[in-house]
């Protein structure tokens, strides 16, 4: 059968590329040059990457997952009518629309992410074909700034960057603030190390974020915008930069947009790797060319911000919802969610989860639904133990609280926070004390150093946690940790310090037994803390393959090649790095 009328669409975000999308595209071009291959942003089914869709342009779609260059010929042959359906790869087909794999997307409600994975982020016409720039045109054709703010008020959207402040209230501050030059900053710093919602939006649907910026700017009267994008996101910078250029050419960005008297332009500023620069006043200092140090508020940026002008900072995801809200109405948005929290929220699932990726669900959904129904539960044989929400500013929610609904108040009640959307899922192989130590190491490293309690307090906490992980902890240390938690929270100037102790507070609250095991029994139940574990070889299981010997960085393993059971670890040399455990195919190495 002729396949020249078929289109192939391959997802190509940073992560798709990491999974090998370039090779897959090359394979399609090599084996079926007559097919029309194009790329789209990443749909966020990370566990299925590389994803390729074959369609006939009339809505008949076959979607395949885990595609490699080796499976491409099989897919092509099937569509040529010369081979069987590659069932193992199939995610969706016109005959099979309810496959388990497809439910990952089918069980989501996508508003912010509505275009991601469906359009080529470098093509403005594809964005236009999906109602793109319709909202700003509608606004310029006859909505006042007040009406725009009213619509956003009806939607009840709250900032998605973490703090959850109602968007329309913030805009009103800046709107009523005197001055005819105002700034809008899109916060794409995505500082939570373990989250990638904003990356996928900036990279996979940049025009949506630009249109969101236009709507916000029009509403409170900004004439210049900055997109502050994390340094580690080169593809986001590239795609966003191209989108700005194309939007200029189309006449939706620049002077007198669509013939109106509304002018707005956007410049990209790349971050330089400082978590604290996600904080509003630090971000402003950073754009001004200074060290990113927060300052005391008031004055709030909405009154006196960038270069002394009224400035609004909005998160990428907040902005990405705005075009949809204008097109569909605030009420439609508010029909999702609960009394406390309206609309949807995007989460990035990673860690010990079977189906990691991006998930957008209505507020009010249970955490358990996200992790189990959508995420497919634990990726190992071990049950899930906890999930970390909100990154270093957040806390862990233990398994017995997975029925908590995703709402600002309900999550706060657990001691965690909604955060920006990072969800790191953990099973029994994660040590909660080590995790707390990790986060405190992070915040201590990222503290700008201005406040004594943040600077010294986080260092003290990190030292105490290290001491406990090293098996030298005492029960009194836990009391000191609790005291420090209170002092740092109270005496810090910015959100970084105020929330830094959260990971310790929540792990202490829910996993005190793990702390006690480290202190009293000198034992790490998850077998993570290097000072409290040993690696040994069970002679009966060792095949004598010598892999472990080659991998050991300190030459702690000796044995005779091909002689079963001959390998032994010299405990005096072993640094418990775990390399031997990872390479041993015979499961002969025991960590305890």
């Amino acid at each position, binding site marked *: 059968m002729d396949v020249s009328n078929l289109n192939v669409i391959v997802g190509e975000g940073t992560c798709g590329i990491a999974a090998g999308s370039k090779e897959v595209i090359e394979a399609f071009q090599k084996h079926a040059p007559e097919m029309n291959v194009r790329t789209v942003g990443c749909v966020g089914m990370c566990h299925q990457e590389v994803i390729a869709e074959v369609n006939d342009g009339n809505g008949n779609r076959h979607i395949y997952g885990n595609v490699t260059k080796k499976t491409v010929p099989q897919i092509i042959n099937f569509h040529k009518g010369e081979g069987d359906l590659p069932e193992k790869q199939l995610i969706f087909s016109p005959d099979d629309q309810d496959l388990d794999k497809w439910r990952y997307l089918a069980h989501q409600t996508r508003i912010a992410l509505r275009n991601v994975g469906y359009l080529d982020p470098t093509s403005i016409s594809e964005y236009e074909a999906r109602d793109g720039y319709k909202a700003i045109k509608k606004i310029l054709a006859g909505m006042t700034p007040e009406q725009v703010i009213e619509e956003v008020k009806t939607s009840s959207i709250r900032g998605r960057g973490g703090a959850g402040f109602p968007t329309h209230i913030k805009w009103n501050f800046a709107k009523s603030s005197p001055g005819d030059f105002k700034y809008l900053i899109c916060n794409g710093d995505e500082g*939570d190390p373990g989250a990638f919602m904003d990356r996928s939006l900036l990279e996979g649907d940049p025009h949506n974020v630009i249109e969101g910026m236009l709507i916000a700017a029009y509403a409170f009267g900004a004439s210049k915008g900055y997109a502050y994008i994390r*340094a580690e996101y080169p593809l986001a910078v590239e795609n966003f930069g191209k989108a700005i250029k194309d939007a200029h050419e189309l006449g939706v960005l620049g002077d007198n947009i669509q013939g109106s008297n509304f002018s707005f332009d956007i410049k990209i500023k790349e971050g330089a790797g400082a978590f604290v620069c996600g904080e509003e006043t630090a971000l402003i200092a950073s754009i001004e060319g*200074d060290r990113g140090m927060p300052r005391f508020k008031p004055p709030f940026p909405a009154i006196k911000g960038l270069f002394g002008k009224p400035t609004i900072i909005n998160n990428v995801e907040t902005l990405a919802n705005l075009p949809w809200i204008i097109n569909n109405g605030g009420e439609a948005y508010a029909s999702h969610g609960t009394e406390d929290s309206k609309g949807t929220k995007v989460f990035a699932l*990673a860690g010990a989860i079977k189906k990691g*990726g991006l998930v957008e669900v209505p507020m009010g959904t249970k955490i358990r639904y996200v992790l189990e129904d959508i995420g497919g539960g634990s990726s190992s044989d071990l049950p899930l133990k906890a999930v970390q929400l909100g990154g270093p500013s957040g806390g862990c929610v233990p398994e017995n609280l997975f029925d908590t609904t995703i709402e600002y108040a309900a999550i706060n009640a657990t001691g965690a926070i909604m955060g920006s959307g990072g969800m790191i899922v*953990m099973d029994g192989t994660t040590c909660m004390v080590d*995790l707390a130590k990790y986060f405190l190491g992070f915040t201590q490293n990222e503290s700008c150093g201005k406040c004594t309690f943040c600077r010294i307090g986080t260092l003290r906490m990190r030292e105490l946690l290290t001491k406990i992980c090293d098996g030298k902890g005492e029960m009194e240390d836990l009391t000191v940790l609790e005291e420090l938690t209170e002092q740092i929270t109270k005496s810090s100037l910015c959100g970084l310090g105020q929330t830094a102790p959260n990971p310790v507070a929540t792990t202490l609250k829910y996993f005190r037994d793990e702390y006690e095991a480290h202190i009293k029994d000198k034992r790490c139940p998850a077998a993570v803390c290097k000072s409290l574990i040993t690696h040994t070889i069970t002679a009966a299981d060792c095949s004598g393959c010598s892999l472990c010997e*080659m991998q050991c960085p300190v030459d702690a393993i000796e044995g005779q090649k091909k002689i079963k059971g001959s390998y032994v670890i010299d405990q005096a040399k072993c640094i418990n790095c775990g390399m031997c455990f990872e*390479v041993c195919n015979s499961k002969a190495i025991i960590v305890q």
Partner: protein
Amino acid sequence: MSQSLEAKVEFEDVLSWIKRIGSDSSSTVPLLQAVQSKYGYLPRAAMDMIIQNTDITGSQVYGVATFYSQFRLKPVGRHMIRVCHGTACHVTGADRLDTSLRHILNITDEEQDTAENGSYTIEQVACIGCCSQAPVLVIADEVSGNLTGANAQRALKKHAKKNEEIVANI
């Protein structure tokens, strides 16, 4: 070793960046980024040229250069390896990627992050946004995910072969 990696700074390059980016104080970060993307670090000579040819003061240049973790003041190897140490990567074994790469590059001194032969520098970064494929690393521009220590070595060897670099151990 570090001496041989010291970059030779071209005055014209720095001037062209100043011309393109600007010479006011809000250009500090982008100017240093331009310098670093060319040389891999911030050579003293380049920073001095910025101070002499813009409105940016010395204390601002050094203040910014030492504040942001992106900036490096020491020369680097010919290629960069960035190992992610974000939360997802931390809980899935980022440490083992470091261990295995340092081993294969024979970097034994804990204070060092560049191989003796100047081939590679290992850098730790916070998160590169591919968390569901953790643990993740980037060699030059190429991201690889779902790695074990042995996979990481394989990825490095592949890169080394293509770029005619010699990696030491194993």
